[in-house]
């Protein structure tokens, strides 16, 4: 693939990076769902899975970012490149919360793949914060509820929906 095309794909796969930087009415514009996420879910250090999480970092909150696309090095040099975050949990990660916010890996995967991802990462982290567009996953979203499908496969966990609007589903999975 041409490098330019690859860069474009990366930028388009992370559309919210642009939003984050966008200024509106002379203050940084943060979507309500983001504000909820930052205020209540990301306390202290956290792991960001393939979702450009370094934009959440500040003085009191440190992000360790795992990305599948080497291009992300251009955006943040401290990022760890892991090619298979869906089925492999890197051993060097030890923080409490894991964040997968509109991860490119979650687009067009199947419910089964998503469930196995959740089960894998819940072994190492007590809480996952996940944002995605559930209609992009491969299941009949016209008939079934996404959380119902996932919760059947992810046992001993509590699901909490933070925001559900405009195709965007933001929720947490907490290990019981």
């Amino acid at each position, binding site marked *: 693939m041409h490098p330019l*095309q690859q860069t474009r*794909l990366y930028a*388009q796969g992370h559309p919210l990076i642009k939003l984050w930087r966008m*200024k509106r009415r002379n203050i940084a514009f943060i979507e309500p769902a983001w504000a909820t996420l930052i205020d209540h879910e990301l306390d202290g250090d956290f792991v960001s899975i393939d979702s450009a999480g370094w934009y959440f970092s500040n003085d009191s909150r440190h992000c360790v970012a795992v990305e599948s696309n080497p291009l992300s090095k251009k955006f943040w040099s401290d990022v760890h490149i892991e090619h298979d975050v869906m089925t492999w949990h890197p051993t060097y990660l030890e923080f409490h919360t894991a964040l997968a916010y509109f991860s490119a890996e979650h687009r067009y995967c199947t419910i089964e793949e998503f469930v196995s991802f959740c089960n894998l990462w819940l072994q190492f982290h007590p809480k996952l914060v996940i944002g995605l567009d559930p*209609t992009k996953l491969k299941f009949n*979203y*016209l008939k079934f509820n996404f959380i119902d499908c996932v919760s059947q496969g992810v046992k001993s966990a509590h699901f909490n929906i933070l925001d559900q609007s*405009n195709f965007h589903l933001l929720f947490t999975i907490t290990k019981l």
Partner: protein
Amino acid sequence: MTCYGSDFRNIIDYTFNNQGYRSLEDFEITDTDPLLVCLGSSIATGHGLELSQSFSSIIAQKFNKKLWNLGQGCFRSSNQTMLEQVEFLVTTDLNIDYWVIQFTHINRQGNRSNSYVELDNDVCIKNFCDILGKITRLLAGKKWCWLLTDWSGSAFPNWVTGHPNKIAIDPDSVDFVPVTGYEHLAPGDHAIRMLKVHPGTEWNLVIANQIIDYFGTNSTRSGTYWRNKQVGDTSALLAQEVACVNFLKKYQNLTWCWQGFSDNFFNYCNAEFTISNTNYNGVIIINSLIGVTPRHFVEYVDSLLHDDVEAVYLAINRYEFIPTNDLNIDYHDDLGQSIKQIVQHISKPFQALSRDCPDVDGNHFVGMHGLDIFVYERN
């Protein structure tokens, strides 16, 4: 005149032509010059500014086009009015190269007297979506863009906020018309309040530059939306486009209504086949429906199918339906089968063609998925 609307400062020269629009020249329907048409409210009119400082004038000057600034201030202005203007203009032979539409507050319903009709916010959003949808269809294949001003703050559906022709919704309020010379009025006087909500020269310049950038990089509706960005060889046809071309070749003598993105594939079809959105007997719908409910989808397709239509090529993105069962369908477990169930609700019988490309591959990763293709053939 130097006093107009809420501007009593006597420093701006307002000139209106015989059609009632702010222009030094009359707008003749027989005009053959290449035009830039701007529709909008008092903001597009340049209220409080010299005409040359309004964003549409800057854009027209940049592209060396004759400006038809059809912005209307005061209570006559509403988004419905702009739709009516577009509906009329597309039927004329005017040589309109660029369209710029500045939508006004979605709650603004001009009733041709000095008052507004206040509607529920949800109703306003629905009305605006209807208007935007109609304009999108009318201007398919043309160079156009829109922005929504007046700080509406409304929650729009995904397809509106992600609309490829969108310049901005609630753009930054950079500066306002300076209010001076109003010392004789009370601070809260209506004239002061109305004049100072109008954006100033800086804002107009910013918006003009955004639109110039947009037209410069987006030659038509979605020139950079997905395809041109992702496919290196822009003359190449994708698998699903070849499927469409093969179907169209079976009906060489038809005039096609184009309902799709206007990228290279539109240019290709426009050169090879006859396309007209006003007088047609065939319909091409390619991935133009984003964020619709099943009922909205069926009504949209039905609205295009008049009695003379002989063939329809319908390619839809199965991931873009809003998950609302508003057709009361007992859905199949499989999504693909469910899409077929929805298509069966269209008034004419469609047959399914196979999906020609996989869901995700290198060239279809972001904007384009394998499309579900259905065709209607009268004979």
